[in-house]
């Protein structure tokens, strides 16, 4: 068998974009997800375009409007440890620290974390599932204990990222460069639900590269956190997770963003929770009401019904913690 395979490491973003123009060319950033997928033949690859030779995609700096710019090639470990992020965007630092294992955090990049492929074991395994061009989703009547309870249709993956919920809660914007130039996409518009297109996870077009992640300035009243419940304490994805970004004033929630991980095929904004807590003090009844409301639209499959009380319990715990720091 002959496999056409090449590996290039361009020295400019423009070159990288043009290298990505050929068939089955894929971006190689940290590689922690990509190489596993190639080994397991989850999807074909004929060319890997390494972006490791593009130093402009690295680093964390303040923007002129006092926000933050994080280069897409910045490692997860750097994000987790960065003083500015720990100080003003705690949920992101906590989310990054909850990713995988120390080795993977040292190698994996923030851009890659947002673009990673689903961890559904049917998608990753020897199953010709819908997302891979097959005829059906094996999870529907299968081993769906880790699958989604919200936002599923035809396909029931959960989005695996621990950093995306925090970034979405902070209103992050992605800068993307491609063959037709550069564009900005809010993170809220970046991920794709299966009902829209079951074969893709993001809106990235062929040849497009996420170059940086921009965070708006953090208000002084902002309190944020990320909580992750998992079956194993390292190298494991969220069974349930939540990023909270609340602006608190006089004991009341002035503004809130609540984003769930482990719940849906994309980072999932729990608008029902936001509605209930915004404008309220985080009293026990409010918290309870919010936790219950978070799951009103949940539709569990055969083996993931536990996620409903789990999300409710986790949300209640996290909102109570937030009340204590407010």
């Amino acid at each position, binding site marked *: *068998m002959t496999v056409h395979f090449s590996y290039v490491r361009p020295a400019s973003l423009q070159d990288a974009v043009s290298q990505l123009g050929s068939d089955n060319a894929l971006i190689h950033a940290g590689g922690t997800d990509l190489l596993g997928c190639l080994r*397991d033949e989850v999807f074909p690859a004929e060319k890997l375009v390494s972006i490791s030779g593009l130093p402009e995609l690295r680093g964390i700096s303040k923007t002129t409007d006092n926000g933050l710019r994080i280069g897409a090639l910045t490692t997860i470990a750097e994000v987790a440890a960065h003083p500015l992020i720990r100080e003003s965007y705690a949920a992101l630092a906590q989310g990054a620290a909850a990713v995988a*294992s120390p080795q993977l955090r040292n190698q994996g990049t923030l851009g890659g974390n947002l673009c990673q492929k689903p961890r559904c*074991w*049917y998608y*990753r*395994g*020897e*199953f010709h599932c819908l997302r891979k061009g097959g005829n059906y989703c*094996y999870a529907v*009547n*299968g*081993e769906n*204990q880790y699958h989604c309870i919200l936002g599923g249709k035809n396909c029931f993956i959960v989005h695996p990222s621990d950093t995306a919920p925090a970034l979405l809660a902070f209103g992050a914007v992605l800068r993307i460069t491609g063959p037709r130039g550069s564009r900005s996409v809010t993170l809220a518009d970046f991920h794709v639900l299966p009902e829209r297109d079951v074969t893709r996870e993001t809106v990235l077009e062929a040849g497009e590269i996420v170059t940086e992640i921009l965070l708006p300035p953090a208000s002084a009243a902002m309190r944020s956190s990320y909580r992750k*419940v*998992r*079956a*194993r*304490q*390292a*190298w*494991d994805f969220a*069974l*349930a997770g939540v990023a909270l970004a609340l602006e608190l004033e006089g004991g009341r929630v002035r503004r809130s963003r609540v984003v769930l991980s482990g719940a849906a095929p994309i980072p999932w904004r729990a608008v029902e929770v936001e509605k209930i807590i915004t404008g309220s003090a985080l009293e026990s009844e409010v918290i*309870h009401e919010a*936790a219950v409301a978070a799951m009103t639209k949940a539709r569990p499959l055969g083996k993931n*019904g*536990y*996620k409903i*009380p*789990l999300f*409710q*319990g*986790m949300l*209640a*715990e996290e909102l109570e913690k937030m009340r204590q720091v407010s």
Partner: protein
Amino acid sequence: MKDDEQDLYFVEGIAVPQTPLPGEEPANWGKTAVIGRRQTRVDAYERVSGTAVYPSDVVLPNMLYGALLRCPHAHARVKKVDASAAERMEGVQAVLTGASLGRQVKWPYNEEVATDLFDDRCRFEGEAVAAVAAATPYVARDALREIKVEYEVLPFVADERRSLATGAARIHGAGNRLKADSYKRGDVARGFAEADIVLEEQYRTACEIQAPMELHGCVANWEGDSLTVWESTQGVYAVQAKIADILGLPLSRVRVIGHYMGGGFGSKLQPGKYTVCAALLAKKTGRPVKIFLSREETLLAAGNRPPATMTIKAGVKKDGTLTALQFTGLASSGAYPAGGISLLDWLVRDLYLCANVQSELTDVAINAGPARPFRAPGHPQCAWALEQMMDALAEAAGLDPIDLRLKNIPLVSQGREGAPPYTTTGLAECIRQGAEAFGWREARRRTAAGRKEQGHLRRGVGMGSCLWVVGGGGPPSTVIVKLFADGSVNLNMGASDIGTGTKTVMAMVLAEELGVRPASIQIEHADTGSTQYATPSGGSKTVPTESPAVRSAAIAVKQQLLQMAAGELGSPVENLRYGGEYIEAVDSGKKVKVTGIAALKKQGVVVGIGYRGPNPEGKVVNPFAAQFCEVEVNTRTGEVRIMRFLGAHESGRVMDRLTFDNQVFGGITMGIGLAMTETRILDENRTGKMVNCNWHDYKLPTALDVPTDMVSLPVELRDSEANSTGAKGLGEPVTIPTAAAIANAIYDAVGVRVRQSPADPLTMKRLLAEEAPEVRS
């Protein structure tokens, strides 16, 4: 004794043990100079630096790389294999298929069942269908993809609880029932009638996979008609026997070497089909062939702890006297008989004093990889059921769990014919000393008080106890010790060191007897060509089996040296004392350096041969244990954090305190895996395939899942009868009660019984919602 000292001898002020006269039995050791210390591994540097050559490191000139094509279906018939494209590939040197082998090579799944090596019926995902040898491992894997196989996919059964149901897929012509076993003593009906409390409950432990660090595999090389195999194994002689049998070779033509190996936990007590394939491919190509499996292959086809569904009905009087135990166990060996119910009821039969015991065991087939022995076969499963039941009985009787157990301590092995006594029975002492060191009663009071509070983080403490069915070791074992003219020592033994520190412990035995430093001893082991016959390292028997033989070989060396010195010192042997560097005549006070003995100089070496003597007649040598733990359960999320663990273990004499503690911590860690994270998940509705067949989704516990607060408490009862070193096995009891202790601690925390492992948030959240709605968020 300092390890960094270069001297051959060490002087501690503790005399080398007296040398018995020929024909006399050696006395038990008194105060020891080396045994019982914390001895760094004699091969630590080699292992850590990477200079140790494991079988997976072996590279021979002209070596080829082999790989096995495996059936991707849970159950299928191979209709056609077309390997022509693979055979034409550049770099491919040989392809083996069912057609090319014909029916000449059989693979014995056990004593009764053999199939063709590449059988046209594949009864589990991962069954071998063909094999290739190629210039590189990559070409070999590519070649597998070019072999076209036509399968007829057959119906499958993935769950042992459905194997016997009407309409279940038939795996074997005779049906899915593989084996049954039953046991009875007394009359359980009478026992239940005498009881004040009778409880019945069903439990299940999920299928767990050994997952050793080093993958399964070997390198095979022929020199003429003689085969040499470097195998990652727990027993070179066991591999030799099976390979010779399958290939129809005399034992003398099969040499198996396994100096280092990276873990097996029972799954490497035997060779694999890969071993046979490597030998056949090497024969066919005339070149050495290396086959190491991928992680996925080992998860599918290199053994597991069988899933077990168990029911216990138990009766107890109000004062805690057990009156009856009735046990039903349904377990699955996988696709072929492989010890699915092996020892599954042993703790019910033997752990607690009970006159009326009955058990029924059934082993059924499912379409999944065959089981292999897994660290204490049957025991952790049985403990999961029995120790939770003991906890429930104690609660029902209003007794502390340790008091219920202490009320029912046997001094004889009731499960054996004639109820022979144990040489020592440390069960009560493990429970008492362990509870004391753990602060059990205080902790129970604290957690009981905590339950009255409303917080969602609940603490609980739990314990479990156990024995291990064997662990006394026994013959045969032959060990050769050579003392060279310069006084340095060589130890030759067939046993494998499977990572437990066997080499270190044996060096310590020699050091104790000969007065030399453990690190100075050269060790040759685990090679059927150059070391003596040994049974595989399994069953927690290696130290109690080999250490008396090593001691006996050391004594044989000393006896010869004393004989040699007698002439030079002009005193009879019985007046001489071997002291390590010197031999002294106690009557005249004259001394001679061992290296100065003329006969030794002339002979160049003294060779001592030691044999393992018999175990005590009519007695049972078993290790005992009790483990205690504290957990914190988050009732809102179902998360369980293990806060601390204590293992109190009675395993006879502590030989090396460092390896002892390593075993305790390692066993607890593995038990945490059974309790908390590990489960093989088969796609039971649609394909029967293992969905978590990878290193991430099959969740071994990580360092963060194991508490930093772990205590190893040896309960060292002197066992003067077991054997001449007083050692008993440890490697398996350390993992038997762990999972059950965690389940009991969870119950103490939140009042929920985790009947099915693992107690991950999936299970916990479901149980908390169903069974303890008052502690819901």
